[in-house]
């Protein structure tokens, strides 16, 4: 096995799926000659040619819409949107068509596509390059939303997403692209969708996160130095959500902190809190606390540190919840 960062493991997953299945094609801005602005698709044009690795015009709704058409006619497109902040342009196509084509035609036409996009903040980027508006997609029936948290996870989850018969929004945490290397197998490796991962077991409190928040949670736990026995859940798929994993854990621990990079209100964390409330209220020994960004536009780099969630905030939330 080779040590890889997440950019490399995604590249590997794409390459292997393209080799395995000739109906897999890539499209997006700069995914070809340039290999993608983050180099995620590097080398794939040379390997698979311009018919399967397509540098598109600069038009996100078009990319999504053309990918939908491809998927309706037998291809398995993996479309890239350069940054999540440009994905708003795809919403109409994804909501009105990708999410609904199967139901609309009672299964006659389907849209097995993946929409990949780097997402999240913490890298002091330009405006619109730090979005984490995953809840725009999670609320749409018919779409799946997947977020990997490590290189290995990324490979397994992307492979499953490409093979999935339904449209998947695949959100790649920019901050984690090159943060960590781990061993990633070449060849068949999948991680099932809609199954959360227990990162570590514990009995005092459940910490729930996804994507780039997982390392922050780990740092927070490190700084707590074993003070509490925390169970950590990496959701992996935000929709359809793995309620069982959440409820099972919270019923055990009775306490929960949800860590969400996005602004607090109306985010994924709210749904988690609401489900816990519905199904585990009597087990709760403290309110489910949401550690989240404030309800503001993410500041430009000079202000980003005010906004971005570090281990300290997670640590305080855990302490608060434990001492409630």
């Amino acid at each position: 096995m080779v040590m890889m960062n997440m950019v490399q493991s995604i590249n590997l997953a794409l390459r292997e799926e393209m080799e395995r299945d000739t109906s897999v094609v890539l499209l997006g801005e700069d995914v070809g000659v340039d290999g993608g602005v983050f180099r995620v698709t590097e080398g794939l044009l040379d390997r698979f040619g311009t018919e399967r690795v397509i540098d598109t015009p600069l038009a996100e709704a078009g990319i999504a819409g053309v990918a939908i058409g491809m998927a309706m006619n037998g291809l398995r497109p993996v479309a890239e949107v350069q940054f999540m902040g440009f994905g708003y342009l795809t919403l109409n196509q994804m909501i009105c068509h990708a999410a609904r084509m199967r139901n609309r035609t009672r299964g006659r036409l389907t849209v097995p596509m993946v929409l990949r996009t780097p997402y999240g903040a913490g890298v002091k980027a330009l405006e619109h390059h730090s979005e984490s508006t995953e809840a725009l997609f999670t609320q749409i029936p018919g779409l799946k939303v997947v977020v990997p948290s490590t290189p290995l996870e990324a490979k397994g989850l992307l492979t499953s997403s490409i093979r999935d018969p339904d449209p998947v929004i695949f959100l790649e945490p920019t901050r984690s692209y090159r943060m960590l290397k781990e061993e990633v197998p070449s060849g068949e490796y999948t991680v099932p969708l809609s199954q959360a991962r227990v990162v570590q077991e514990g009995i005092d409190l459940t910490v729930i996160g996804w994507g780039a928040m997982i390392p922050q949670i780990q740092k927070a736990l490190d700084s707590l130095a074993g003070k509490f026995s925390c169970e950590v859940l990496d959701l992996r798929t935000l929709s359809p959500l793995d309620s069982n994993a959440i409820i099972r854990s919270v019923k055990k621990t009775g306490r929960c902190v949800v860590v969400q990079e996005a602004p607090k209100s109306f985010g994924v964390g709210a749904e988690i809190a609401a489900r816990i409330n519905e199904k585990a209220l009597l087990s709760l020994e403290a309110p489910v606390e949401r550690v989240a960004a404030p309800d503001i536009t993410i500041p430009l780099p000079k202000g980003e540190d005010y906004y971005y969630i570090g281990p300290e905030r997670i640590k305080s939330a855990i302490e608060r919840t434990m001492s409630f």
Partner: protein
Amino acid sequence: MLVDDFDPLKGKRLEILRKDGSVNKKLEPKIDDDILLKAYRTMVLTRVADEKAVKLQRQGRLGAYPPTKGQEASQIGPALAMGPNDWLVWAFRELGGLIYRGVPLWRLYLYWMGNEEGSSYPEGVHATPSVVPVGSQVPHAVGIAYAAKQRKEDTAVVCFFGDGGTSEGDFHEGLNFAGVMRTPNVFICQNNQWAISVPRERQTASKTIAQKAVAYGFPGIQVDGNDVLALYVATKEALERARKGEGPTLIESYTYRMGDHTTSDDATRYRLEKELLEWADRDPIARFRVYLTNRGLWGEEKEKALLEEVSATVEEEVKKAESFPRPTFEDCFRHTFATMPEDLREQMEALRRELPTGRE
């Protein structure tokens, strides 16, 4: 090539079958008699089926419906030109084209009656379902065409949209992709002069829709949209170019929406009777009938028989649609994903228990 001879920037429009039914011999296509007759039958069937849909809506037996009256040639002309594997991607006012291409009329009724089963077409019919968000089907047509091209199939894709649809970003992005990717697409704008209450001149300042092709680097042509022969000829040439790898074409079918926008609309609020009468005079079916008659293919008897047959057919199809079972409770959940997620099943079961009797 027609697209060279009829440059929209020079104010040219392709016309073959004149409104009095006489024909421009130089441009007249050679079409087998049985195809001509099938086309005529479909046009008449479409007219009758369309009027029936409006009536059904008035009777509360069908939901809001967009009448297609006056646009039969505009849809059936292209359908004649299409090959068996070609795809038809439509908006929501293309009843005639769909019937010609083999979508059962009862399914289309079923759709307008509010049942998703209406959009589940038989195997082998390469047509997409109705698309409500205006213009949003255009990129699909490009993707469908790309997939066919990538697999080296001999398939082309005909995509319909309205004059209003050309204002949407999706139209632009779709045509631009098609130009760059040289996909086998034929884009047909049914310019019926109106987008609900907005007249064509307020939709865009461009003199013709056809000239918009200039922006995408492929040919555009304006065609008399009430002339089934002109539509056939223009589409045929465009399809040939598409199949040869020469890329897309934009065809503006210059026609008229004789009815209200939908059954919820009242067009007298915004347009003049006079305009309607002028266009009634250019009816696509009437002139085609004269043409067939002049060719010795048609006569009063045949017309009478056809009308009877077609009316009976329509009644049959309505019956089929109306006797089609209502979707079950579970049908509404089943097709959200290929496999139903556990939570959704749980929601379904909980809701089933709660639904007041009679609802399910």
